[in-house]
């Protein structure tokens, strides 16, 4: 056997590790994206509907409080948030290491990130169209379902795309504190052990993932946009 191993050999040798890391990354992404879409999406909708001039604009206090909260959480550099809420993470996940534990701070960051993204996307729906629905006797829930989610849908798809790409990279940060996943692999082998080839493999893997997410997101957004 030659002393220097080729990139291919490294790949072969580390394949189980890489697969496991990819699985962990996908698990973290699945958890934090779901939390963001359900909770963050609802929060974003409420912030939009309670903004001045919209149909629930009379709930000004809620709007101010929710806006403030979103800004506060989004002010935390992710790695600080990760450490700062670790007691809370232990309560929720029972541990503060591993992909499940890392999913807790990831979810919290993603919820508030997505809430802001959604609120901004919904601003593109013309006020006149929402007003037309109000004139038809639509309730706030019907306005969400029949107008906002319909007219903003391509923007919403793009918002999910941006969210997924951002949190793929955030999930790599979680590797620093033993979160697992592709980022963890890059740090353990590529950084601590100076195995540049492993670093390269993980970066290629992340680039492929980001490109795929972006391509799929844009294709789908175009597909649902009839404007």
């Amino acid at each position, binding site marked *: 056997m030659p002393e220097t191993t080729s990139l291919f050999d490294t790949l072969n040798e580390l394949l189980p590790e890489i697969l496991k890391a990819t699985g962990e990354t996908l698990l973290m992404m699945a958890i934090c994206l779901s939390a963001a879409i359900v909770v963050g999406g609802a929060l974003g909708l409420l912030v939009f509907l309670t903004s001045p001039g919209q149909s629930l604009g009379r709930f000004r206090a809620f709007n101010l409080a929710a806006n403030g909260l979103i800004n506060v959480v989004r002010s935390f550099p992710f790695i600080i948030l990760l450490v700062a809420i670790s007691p809370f993470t232990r309560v929720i996940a029972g541990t503060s290491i591993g992909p499940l534990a890392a999913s807790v701070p990831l979810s919290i960051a993603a919820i508030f990130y997505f809430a802001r993204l959604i609120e901004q996307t919904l601003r593109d729906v*013309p006020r*006149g*169209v929402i*007003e*037309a*629905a*109000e*004139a*038809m*006797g*639509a*309730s706030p829930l*019907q306005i969400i379902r*029949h*107008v906002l989610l*319909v*007219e903003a*849908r*391509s923007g919403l798809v793009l918002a999910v795309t941006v969210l997924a790409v951002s949190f793929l990279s955030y999930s790599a940060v979680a590797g620093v504190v033993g979160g697992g996943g592709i980022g963890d692999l890059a740090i353990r082998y590529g950084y601590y052990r100076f195995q540049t080839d492993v670093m390269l493999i993980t970066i290629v893997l992340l680039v492929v993932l980001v490109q795929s997410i972006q391509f799929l997101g844009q294709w789908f957004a175009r597909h*649902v*946009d*009839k*404007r």
Partner: protein
Amino acid sequence: MPQTSSTAAAPPAIELRGVSRRFADPGGRSVGVHPTSLIVPQGEIHGIIGFSGAGKSTLLRIVNLLERPDAGEVVVHGETLTRLSAAGLRQARHRIGMIFQHFNLLHNLTVADNVALPMRIAGESPARIAERVRVCLDFVGLAEKADVYPGRLSGGQKQRVAIARALAPEPHVLLADEPTSALDPRTTLDLLGVLADANRKFGVTILLVSHEMEVIRRLCHRVSVMEGGRIVEQLDIAGGRIPEGSRLAGWLQDFGAVGPAASPSPSTPPQDGAPSHFALEAAHA
């Protein structure tokens, strides 16, 4: 005029009792509507005309409480809207159609789905929705565009879809906020024909705001002239004749539009190359 004489027993379609609504415009001046009353009998096409900032649109939007008056009462078809709960108001709005200057169609819904929208919101059955969508698209002459998205339609076609959408739930009242102001003159004539037809065929009462004299003159049975947030004049103009000596007649002369003396007699069809579909004068006869 049958529209007013046949409704002696019926409640008016729209009754505004001393409604007012004041707010500051972007320049900080107080604008809106001073305490104003208006009665529109069932079946009438009533115009509101005036210059920008006269309060026309505000008054119109008070009728379905898109603009809630600071004081006064709004009664539509015998129901006092200003006393209803939020849910009651939504229920009442199901029977008040509205069309807008910029159409306000949903661009991600097909024409048929746009027309179906108010009925879906009102919780009608799919069978009834399908039936009404067919009838209303037929009525505005766009049956073959049912599966097209509004982005592919002309302005006039978009406003026809908006009219079909407003008529789908069989409203008592149709509110029209500058419905032709974004359209060219020929398309405008065409659309006025559709509105006159809707009034004649379905008996829907129409309250229309416009700053275009011709639109008011051709379509409306009566007109309220607004200035500075008040109705300053109310005229019977059925047949397109504007009474001499009225403020409106003065405006027409001042602004170089068709002078009242030169306006055609009620039975004269329009002479400006309007499409044959145009049947306004017949609607008035």
